[in-house]
C-alpha cells in the first residue's frame, strides 16, 4: 500500500503520458463517452419527472363508492369508518349531495348553467376513497363486497394507461442504460488495450525488472477513469443548460406538469452521471487490462 502512495505522482504522470500519446483518439472517446452519458442523463431526468408525475397521480388515485338512497348519514359514516380501516386506503371522506354539486359546478365553470335545468340536485352523496395505486384491485374488491355499497366508480382505466406508459418508459430507460453501459465499457476497454499495445515495450521492461501486475496496470486504470470522468463532466456540462431551458419552457407552457425542484434535479443528475462514469471507467479499464497478460514475460 505504501508503494502505491509513494508512486501516486508517477501513476498520474504515466496516465497523462498514455492519454497524450494517442491524444486525438482519446479526445474522441471522451466526446463519445460524454454523449452516451448525456443520453443516460436524459433518461435519469425523464425518470425523475415521470416518478414525480406518478407519485402525484398515485396520491390522487381515488374511487367513488355509492350507497343506496335509503342510507342515512350515520350509516354512511359507519361505512366511511369501515373503508378507512381497509389496507391500501389512506383516506376516506363522505361527500354530501351539495358538495358533489359544488364540485361539478367548479369543474364545468361557465357551462355550470346547464345544472339549473334540473329542478332538484341531481347528484348523490358518495364516499370518496383515496387509495394507494398499487392496492387498487384489492380495495375495489373489498369495497364492492361491503354491505350497504350499491356500486363503485373508479378512474382505473386512466391510471392503468398511465401506469402502462410509465412502465414502458422505464423499460426503455433500462434498455438505454444497458446500451450506455456496454458501449462505454467497450470504448474504454478498447482505449486501454490500445494504450497497453502502445506501451508494450515499457510493460515488458517493467516485468523483467520484477514489477507486479498491479503496479504495471494501475496507470491504465487511471487512464480509463480519467477518460470517463472527462466524458461525465462533458455530459453534465451539456445537461445543465438543457435542464434550465426545459424548466423555462415547461414552466411557461405546461404549468400543470409536476417538476421536481430544479437544483435538486441538477445535483442528483450530476452526482449520478459522475458516479456512473467513474464506475464504468473502472470496469472498462479492468476489461481492457486483461490484454496486459499477452505482453510477454
Amino acid at each position, binding site marked *: 500500500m505504501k508503494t502505491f502512495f509513494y508512486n501516486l505522482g508517477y501513476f498520474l504522470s504515466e496516465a497523462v503520458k498514455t492519454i497524450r500519446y494517442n491524444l486525438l483518439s482519446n479526445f474522441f472517446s471522451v466526446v463519445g463517452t460524454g454523449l452516451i452519458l448525456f443520453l443516460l442523463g436524459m433518461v435519469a431526468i425523464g425518470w425523475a419527472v415521470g416518478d414525480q408525475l406518478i407519485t402525484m397521480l398515485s396520491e390522487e388515485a381515488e374511487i367513488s363508492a355509492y350507497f343506496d338512497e335509503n342510507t342515512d348519514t350515520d350509516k354512511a359514516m359507519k361505512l366511511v369508518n369501515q373503508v378507512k380501516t381497509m389496507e391500501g386506503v389512506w383516506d376516506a371522506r363522505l361527500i354530501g349531495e351539495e358538495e358533489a354539486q359544488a364540485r361539478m359546478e367548479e369543474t364545468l365553470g361557465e357551462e355550470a348553467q346547464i345544472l339549473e335545468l334540473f329542478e332538484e340536485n341531481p347528484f348523490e352523496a358518495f364516499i370518496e376513497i383515496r387509495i394507494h395505486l398499487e392496492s387498487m384491485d384489492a380495495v375495489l374488491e373489498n369495497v364492492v363486497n361491503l354491505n350497504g355499497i350499491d356500486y363503485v366508480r373508479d378512474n382505473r382505466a386512466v391510471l392503468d394507461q398511465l401506469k402502462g406508459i410509465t412502465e414502458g418508459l422505464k423499460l426503455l430507460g433500462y434498455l438505454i442504460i444497458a446500451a450506455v453501459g456496454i458501449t462505454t465499457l467497450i470504448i474504454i476497454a478498447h482505449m486501454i488495450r490500445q494504450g497497453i499495445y502502445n506501451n508494450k515495450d515499457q510493460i515488458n521492461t517493467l516485468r523483467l525488472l520484477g*514489477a507486479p501486475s498491479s503496479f504495471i496496470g494501475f496507470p491504465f486504470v487511471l487512464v480509463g477513469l480519467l477518460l470517463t470522468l472527462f466524458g461525465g463532466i462533458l455530459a453534465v456540462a451539456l445537461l445543465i443548460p438543457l435542464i434550465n431551458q426545459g424548466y423555462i419552457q415547461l414552466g411557461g407552457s405546461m404549468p400543470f406538469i409536476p417538476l421536481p425542484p430544479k437544483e435538486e434535479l441538477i445535483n442528483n443528475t450530476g452526482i449520478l452521471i459522475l458516479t456512473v462514469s467513474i464506475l464504468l471507467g473502472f470496469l472498462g479499464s479492468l476489461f481492457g487490462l486483461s490484454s496486459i497478460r499477452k505482453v510477454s514475460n
Partner: protein
Amino acid sequence: MIEAKDVSLKYQEGTLALQNVNLEIKPGELVFITGPSGSGKTSLLKLIMGMEYPTSGSLKVFGQPMTKRRGRRIRRLRKKVGPVFQEFQLIEGRTAIENVMIGMRFLGKTPRKMKEDAKNALTRVGLIHKAKSMVENLSWGEAQRVAIARAVARKPALILADEPTGNLDHDNALNILALLTSFRDQNTAVIITTHATHLIENYENATFIHVDKGNITVERREQTK
C-alpha cells in the same frame, strides 16, 4: 545463489539451446559467460531471469525452483536482480534519472530515497550531468551507463549483463567491464556474457563459463599474488 543440475532447455521449435548444464554460483562471485553467438549464453541468462524454464533438470535461483508453475514467485525474484539488457530497454520519453528510478518504484522506497539512490548510481557511472536528459538523446555508451545505473541503484544481489561490450570499441568495452565488475562485493554477484574473450583474459578471482552448442565448461580462476 544459483544451482543448476542437469539443466536442459529445448525451445518449442526444437532447438536444443542448453543440455545437461551443471553449475553453482555463490553470492559475491564474478562470472563471465563466454561463447560464440548462438551458443546458448543468452538462453542461460533467460533461465536465470525466469524468462524461460528448464525443459529438464533442476534450477534454483535464490533457493527458488525455477518452474513454470511458480511463475508468479519467480517474477518476484527479479526484484533481487539488476539486469543490463543487450538493447538496454530504456523507456523513451523519460529522462535518465526517471529511467533509473523506475527500477526502484515497486521496491517500497520513499520518493526521496529513490531519487537519492538514482543520483548516486548516476554519479557512479559518471552520468550525473545527464540526469535530466531524455534517454533518446543520449549516445549508445551513455544509454548503456544509464541501464547500468538502473540495475545497480536497486542494490541487487545479482547483476546480470547481457553482451555489454557488443557495440563498443576496445577501450570503451574495457571501461564498461571495469565499471560492471566494480559493483561486485560480498553481497552482490556479477554475471556478464560476452563473446569477446580477449577482453576478460586478465581477470582473476572469477569464474569462466564457456558455452558451446548448449554444452558448458566451467573454469575457476583464483587470484594470483
